[in-house]
């Protein structure tokens, strides 16, 4: 099997020394982590390795030697390196060598047992795979299932293939702690994290975050305790809460905030990512909300809105009245049953009258209400949006009523007709067998049934028309609310942090790796460059999208049309399920 040597690009220019890394026997691959420079004392090297090993629980060893001929190759060094093999016994013993000038390296792997497989340079046994230590260290392989669990110590068992490489590099972070400037006993060369000051700031933030989290968590728990107090559990209130989208949104936010400020740490990266996403989305939400607030409370926009609102409602009512007048005449040339038409028309007109008076009753308070609503925007854009949708629902309550009456009437008619049509054909619905059986009716049953059937079928168009008109109105309102809720859900569930990460640091979220064959000369080991294959945006969103408080009834279009046809009630998207009440 070909021996694969994963070599960090940052060490390519290091001067000669020992290769420190991990040997993965099952893929016969050597993961080089760092280069130990001369001079060193073997004991110290071994100590260091031992420390790292018990810190990171990765079996790190000296894999071989690395010689980088800056000037003309001196034989002695070569021999010395050969000798080192005796001290650090490892099998196989790698010997990487880079001449000046040529960018092709020579590389051989020595095995003790089989001296025949003594790789003379140019014998193509070894395959060099260059990797960017930093990227591999920081990147997170997807799907995360490939990651080994930290509790179980051994990496070799858990991770397989490239996951093992990633895992090795990720765990031996300890090795990279020691940086260029401090004078350790052993001089290593590996990836150095720049910007120590920044890291200090990060440390401070970490220190500070603990108590703040605690404090906020207490506050939040208090709020939630209040919200769950029994007063709100009484019947009418609880019912209203369940119907008001604002409360839903508030509950959702509350839980999210609790999750963020929960004192215990996130144990795996996905949870961390989740927290970060929530935090970012909340921040964005609040920022947008504040902008809205500033816009509203600047130069008395609220007042204008309030003044605009009442006439709009009046206007809507007027329009409805006209519509009804039209329906009571001969709408679109349809001739409907005059008597029924009149009755229905009057009934609805009376409703509208009630509605207008109601609006006028509460017109003086509207401005104040709006003002407070505007204040709520500081809790976040989503909150104010859901409040808006609730207001719409309240203002169009009469339309809802019309719709319900129409639908009920129509529904009755349809069911009556369907059963009478069965009677008309001399069939009946068998409840036990759930099927239509033929049955022999009495004469009078038949007669009455047919009479009713005729009556219903001639009255159907009238009701159907009313139903149609009001359903259209209703659907209009529902779509508006639905759009608002879609917007809210978008803000709630979009994993902004992950997306930003993908945008700026593509290597952090890795879908896998890809290899590029570097230019290659016969008789030299093959050199590959391992690059990180970033996760596509679609999968980022799919993986990290936050659970929205989605309680929409999942209407497929077919079922929607079916319900419309049979006159079952249709509810705005927020209502849980499609319960009839």
């Amino acid at each position, binding site marked *: 099997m070909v021996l694969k040597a994963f070599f960090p690009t940052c060490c390519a220019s290091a001067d000669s020394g020992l290769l420190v890394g991990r040997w993965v026997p099952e893929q016969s691959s050597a993961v080089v982590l760092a280069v130990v420079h001369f001079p060193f004392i073997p004991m110290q090297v071994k100590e260091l390795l031992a420390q790292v090993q018990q810190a990171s629980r990765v079996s790190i060893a000296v894999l071989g030697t690395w010689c980088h001929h800056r000037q003309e190759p001196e034989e002695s060094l070569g021999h010395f390196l050969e000798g080192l093999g005796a001290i650090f016994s490892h099998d196989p013993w790698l010997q990487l060598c880079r001449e000046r000038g040529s960018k092709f390296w020579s590389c051989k792997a020595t095995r003790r047992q089989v001296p025949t497989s003594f790789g003379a340079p140019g014998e193509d046994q070894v395959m060099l795979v260059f990797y960017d230590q930093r990227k591999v260290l920081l990147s997170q392989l997807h799907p995360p299932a490939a990651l080994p669990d930290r509790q179980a110590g051994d990496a070799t068992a858990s991770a397989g293939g490239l996951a093992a490489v990633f895992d090795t590099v990720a765990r031996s972070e300890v090795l990279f702690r020691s940086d260029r400037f401090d004078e350790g006993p052993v001089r290593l060369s590996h990836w150095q994290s720049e910007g120590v000051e920044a890291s200090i700031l990060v440390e401070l933030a970490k220190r500070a975050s603990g108590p703040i989290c605690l404090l906020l968590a207490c506050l939040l728990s208090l709020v939630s305790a209040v919200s769950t107090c029994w007063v709100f559990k009484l019947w009418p209130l609880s019912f209203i809460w369940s119907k008001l989208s604002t409360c839903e949104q508030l509950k959702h936010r509350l839980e999210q905030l609790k999750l963020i400020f929960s004192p215990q740490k996130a144990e795996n990266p996905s949870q961390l990512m989740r927290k970060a996403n929530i935090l970012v989305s909340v921040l964005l939400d609040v920022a947008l909300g504040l902008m809205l607030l500033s816009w509203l409370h600047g130069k008395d926009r609220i007042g204008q809105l309030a003044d605009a609102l009442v006439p709009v409602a009046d206007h809507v009512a007027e329009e409805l009245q006209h519509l009804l007048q039209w329906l009571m005449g001969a709408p679109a040339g349809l001739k409907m049953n005059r008597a029924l038409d009149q009755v229905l028309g009057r009934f609805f007109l009376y409703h509208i009258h009630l509605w207008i008076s109601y609006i006028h009753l509460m017109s003086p308070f509207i401005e104040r209400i709006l003002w407070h609503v505007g204040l709520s925007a500081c809790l976040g854009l989503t909150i104010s949006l859901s409040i808006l949708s609730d207001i719409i629902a309240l203002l169009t309550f009469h339309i809802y009523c019309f719709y319900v009456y129409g639908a009920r009437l129509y529904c009755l008619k349809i069911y009556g007709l369907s059963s009478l049509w069965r009677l008309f054909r001399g069939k009946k619905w068998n409840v036990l067998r759930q099927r239509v059986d033929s049955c022999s009716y009495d004469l009078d049953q038949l007669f009455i049934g047919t009479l009713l059937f005729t009556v219903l079928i001639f009255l159907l168009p009238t009701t159907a028309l009313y139903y149609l008109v009001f359903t259209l109105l209703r659907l209009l309102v529902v779509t508006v609310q639905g759009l608002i809720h879609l917007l809210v859900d978008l803000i709630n569930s979009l994993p902004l942090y992950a997306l930003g990460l993908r945008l700026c640091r593509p290597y952090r979220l890795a879908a896998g790796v890809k290899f590029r*064959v570097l230019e290659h000369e016969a008789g030299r080991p093959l050199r590959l460059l391992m690059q990180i294959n970033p996760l596509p945006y679609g999968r980022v969103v799919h993986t990290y999208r936050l659970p929205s408080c989605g309680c929409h009834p999942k209407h497929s279009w077919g079922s929607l049309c079916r319900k419309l046809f049979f006159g079952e009630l249709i509810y705005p998207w927020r209502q849980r399920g499609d319960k009839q009440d």
Partner: protein
Amino acid sequence: MEDKMSFFDICGGRLALQRRYYSPSCREFCVSSPRLSLRLLTVVTCTVWLAAYGLFTLCENSMILSAAIFVTLLGLLGYLHFVKIDQETLLIIDSLGIQMTSSYASGKESTTFIEMGKVKDVIINEAIYMKVIYYLCILLKDPGEPDGISQVVPVFQMEIMKFRQIKNCLLSSCFAQFTGWAVGLVRDSFQEGPMRPEPRPF
């Protein structure tokens, strides 16, 4: 070293298959189709614009013309970016994995790398796909149970006619340890997964 040979694809177009040997343990196969033919492009564009102009003459609305231009541009972009595959490369590195790169006409490249550990087998499969075609595909192991198949990855999107002609140069030389005549399955039902392939000589 490298060599080229040319084939017909399933609709009679020309395809070039090209092999590169970097080393005994690393080979590359790349199927490349001819570039976007200018004639086709002009024909399509002209037809769309003429139609648009016809409409324009009917109803005096210059929106149509601009819309037509817009549509053609968008269509061209979409075609180049999502549909037209210029070349597909298959890089096999022994004991490391298989890497498939398909580069679109717009220069967009999508790469997937499959580790050898995950590969269960590589087979030539037969599928009913409006016509009956042969295609090369990689079977991935199911981590759950042994000799189960979790996924089927088709290798070349451009179906090559006379696939059996080149099965030698593809299968025998690159997947020495794999074998291949599969038992067919409908192209659109990958989740079903085919049965284990039959051993075949090459």
